[in-house]
């Protein structure tokens, strides 16, 4: 299976490892990620205003590219996934936005939300299957107690994201089991890390990060995993105390599949 792949701006820079491990693991698990040529930044936040059109165009261009190839569109970054999936929903279901966007791109075939948008974790769960991953694990992460940090963007609003139960998700816990480790469920796993507030309001972000870390440690987690570079940054850098170590889920997948050293080299 070959997917159109939208890496996003951060995966080309500060979150390179999230990208490298994702590509290598895809290969090991038997699916291809074909990077969309000349993709543009998704904008990192979904434009909530009903009258914003220009800020949705980069997502539509990526979606159209995937449609032309007849491929589903895969992202790894939570923010890219959130933005592109919601814009796709607008193109499928909000007539005013669809009409304005298509009028703007008037020289091309109209786009009506045909492309299917998948997060990498959804490919693991729904296409590859966690049982199949388990069989391919050569280095099970036995004895490691790992907390899933979902954050906001994968889950909410659930009516559009349709990723998992927004209040009691299980996909990352199932992933953790598949790679041989023990998932630790803790109350704050789907609470916000502070997001973009950490640029100008470090104390507010610190307060939120501390609550997440305390909650995970209290339930016995020894480490956390995430799919979002901004969550990663806040959790690692913006708490007031020494928190739990945080890694990208793709890095642990590579470790379990026994390809981590190969990727690093």
């Amino acid at each position, binding site marked *: 299976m070959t997917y159109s792949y939208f890496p*996003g*701006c*951060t995966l080309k*820079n*500060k*979150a390179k490892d999230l990208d490298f491990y994702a590509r290598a693991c895809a290969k090991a698990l038997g699916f291809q990620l074909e990077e969309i040529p000349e993709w543009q*930044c998704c*904008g*990192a*936040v*979904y*434009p*909530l*205003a*009903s*009258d914003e059109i220009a*800020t949705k165009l980069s997502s539509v261009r990526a979606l159209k590219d995937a449609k032309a190839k007849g491929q589903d569109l895969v992202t790894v*970054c939570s*923010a890219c996934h959130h933005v592109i999936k919601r814009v796709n929903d607008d193109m499928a279901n909000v007539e005013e936005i669809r009409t304005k966007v298509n009028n703007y791109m008037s020289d091309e075939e109209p786009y009506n939300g045909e492309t299917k948008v998948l997060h990498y974790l959804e490919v693991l769960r729904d296409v590859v299957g966690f049982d199949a991953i388990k069989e391919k694990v050569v280095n099970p992460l036995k004895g490691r107690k790992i907390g899933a940090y979902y954050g*906001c963007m994968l*889950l*909410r*609003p*659930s009516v559009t994201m349709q990723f998992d139960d*927004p*209040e009691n998700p299980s996909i990352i816990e199932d992933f953790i089991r598949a790679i041989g480790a023990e998932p630790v469920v803790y109350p704050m796993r789907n*609470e*916000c890390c*502070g*997001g*973009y*507030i*950490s*640029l*100008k*309001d470090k104390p*507010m972000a610190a307060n*939120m990060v501390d609550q997440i870390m305390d909650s995970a440690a209290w339930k016995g987690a020894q480490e956390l995993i995430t799919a*979002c*570079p*901004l969550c*990663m*940054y806040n959790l*690692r*850098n913006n708490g007031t105390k020494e928190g739990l170590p945080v890694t990208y889920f793709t890095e642990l997948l590579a470790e379990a599949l026994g390809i981590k050293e190969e990727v690093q080299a």
Partner: protein
Amino acid sequence: MSADAKLAQQIREISGVDTRKCMKCGRCSASCPAYNEMDIRPHQFVSYVQNGNVEALMNSKSIWKCLSCFACVERCPRDVKPAKVIEAVRLSVIRQRGENFLSPDEIPALLDDETPQQLLASAYRKYRK
């Protein structure tokens, strides 16, 4: 239509929110992780717009505290979407008054070695036009 009523109508249009749907249960504010940082809370945004008092919202610091985490949207039993109201007020301030919350001159001092591009892109999208 009075100036206040016009502003309220504009917020309804930008947000697409029907403020009359609110049944004032307060679940949005109870869910909000930025509640303690806000001078006007999410449930109040909805009722202020309903009552035509948008000016107070435009002067509120809450518009720079909302995280767009969508907890209020997810948990609202009436599907009012308070986050969209807050976004519409914030955008009105930026569009009408040209008041940007982030200046490019500030950026160098705010960066560290780990700052992800995602943080700059999202802050720019939220804080200025």
